[in-house]
């Protein structure tokens, strides 16, 4: 069933259209930087964007930072929100459940396909970012200066980039879990997507308020940018570990709730 769901997801043109659109913004930024030679100062704008004019190999990180606050969560919410509610809206859910596999296995299959989408999307953004960065900008050997001012070897920089890709992927799993959870409650994919996005907008807004500081450590978007800490020297693991744990809690609770709801609700469409 998992193979079927993966096959369905990656055969849909809209999946790849979503991924392509997601790559358009970093590409536009790269072209503008190349044409104008005007990079933001270090510490301003998306992380690492300041360094790409002199070292294009850092553009995968800048590309992830560009799409992370808004575009990536929207793409993930759209796909995850559609996973169950889309079948219900199309009237195919009851036929899927007519198979002897059962609801739990269907939910797990949907879950795995959404997680696969998140991973593929993040890797594609990073890969396209690398190609764009090394094509449009001066490509130094893969080495560089850490945020702390020390020099990173090629091995260190490559390892940390892989860790950053993994961290961003895990951060998006929380978004996917929210959308999948809402998707089991409604027959409207749009409703499920908007529900997940509403949670993220609320979280981002509350994070800026001092009055909300007691609950800030529990906001789903709180540690998203902690992947920058992977490029400090030594690596600052504190927020990275907290970010992973927080996403783990959201994913665990929401998927358990999605399972409890999906396996007990009446399916009419």
């Amino acid at each position, binding site marked *: 069933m998992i193979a079927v769901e993966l096959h369905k997801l990656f055969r849909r043109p809209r999946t790849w259209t979503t991924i392509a659109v997601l790559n358009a913004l970093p590409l536009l930024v790269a072209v503008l930087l190349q044409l104008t030679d005007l990079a933001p100062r270090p510490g301003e704008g998306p992380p690492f964007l300041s360094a790409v004019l002199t070292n294009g190999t850092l553009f995968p990180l800048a590309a992830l930072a560009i799409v992370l606050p808004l575009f990536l969560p929207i793409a993930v919410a759209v796909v995850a929100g559609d996973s169950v509610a889309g079948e219900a809206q199309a009237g195919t859910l009851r036929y899927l459940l007519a198979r002897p596999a059962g609801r739990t296995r269907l939910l797990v299959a949907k879950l795995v396909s959404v997680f696969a989408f998140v991973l593929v999307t993040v890797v594609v953004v990073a890969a396209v970012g690398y190609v764009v960065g090394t094509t449009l900008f001066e490509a130094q050997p893969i080495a560089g200066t850490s945020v702390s*001012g020390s020099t990173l070897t090629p091995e260190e920089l490559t390892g940390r980039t892989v860790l950053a890709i993994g961290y961003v992927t895990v951060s998006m799993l929380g978004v996917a879990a929210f959308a999948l959870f809402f998707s089991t409650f409604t027959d409207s994919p749009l409703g499920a997507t908007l529900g997940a996005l509403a949670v993220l907008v609320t979280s981002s807004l509350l994070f800026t308020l001092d009055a909300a500081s007691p609950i800030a450590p529990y906001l789903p978007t709180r540690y998203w940018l902690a992947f920058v800490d992977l490029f400090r020297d030594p690596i600052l693991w504190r927020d990275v570990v907290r970010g992973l744990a927080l996403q783990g809690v959201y994913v665990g609770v929401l998927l358990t709730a999605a399972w409890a709801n999906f396996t007990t609700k009446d399916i009419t469409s």
Partner: protein
Amino acid sequence: MVASGYGAARRWAVVAVLAGVLLALPSVVGALPASDADVPAPQLRADALASADVAFSGYAESAGGLTLPVGDRLSRLSDLVSDRTLMRVWDAGPDRRRVDVLAAGGETGYHADGAGGWVWEYEDARATRTAPSPLSLPTPPDLLPTSLGRRLLSEAADEELSRIGARRVAGRDALGLRLVPWAPAAAVERVDVWVDAASGLPLQVQVFGAADVPALDTRYLDLELGSPDPAVTSFVPPPGARVALDRERDLLEQADRRIARVPLPAELAGLPRRTIEGAPAAVGLYGRGVTLLAAVPVAGRLARDVAGTLRASPEAVDDGRGLRVAAGPLGLLVLDPPGEGAWLVAGTVTLDALAAAAAALPPPAEEG
């Protein structure tokens, strides 16, 4: 097959229990009781002051609630006492220390060595070599609980100290020490310092003015004892960085030559005069401990500039005894009599004490 009503209830009960356990976990961990120890206040102060050589690494947060009406001229200082500052620390003693001030997309690193230090600013890709300076504006490392706690306790009298129980700070048992300054001019109502029971390191410092909430609250969130790796504390400017030399000491020497000296009273607002080696002789420094006052002769043009900023504050008092503003326990006064010279007076004293100081100051000299 849809689960029965009983099955549905059981499944939702699993969700509720899982969510409940995860939600309660931070509160349970946070509620772990602290173990108090029968250490008298003067001994605890001595332990804190003796901890300067204790090596450690940590992660600290400083939160200030002071809005300094100083405009853009001293925006870094203003941000320091009004914002939340996150810092990583590796401390192997005064001659080998690194403090990184963390921002979401950047970092400023302060590396101290025996002969001064380096300041690395990622935002500007700039490394600045600094020399030890007897007098300088506060920087984030000065707000670390260890630095601030020892500084505030260094001149406290035993009679000003008392014990206030214990609490958990950075996952460690911290013994409470309260400092209530006796000076009538003091604007600081009290300072609570929470000292690590095992090492004597100050783990949290809270400075209170008249309000119930601290004007400044700085604490370690993580702390680990042990000497940090020398490779972590050392610094070499990276390739491509702009390297600069800090001119603060030169400016101080220049100020010492340029500021005209006038005879200053031995006491201001009931606070005795004190001297700091290397500070410009024309600047009057008064008080001790947490009750300090500085009187600086400045050019009239600069004074009028500062006065313009102070007047914008709704708290400003201008009753002919000098333009005064209080920001929590910090007070600022501009005294600008007719002529070219003026006085800028600042300190952790009340507005009345500032007015009394202004009345006792001699006429300012013309700028040299």
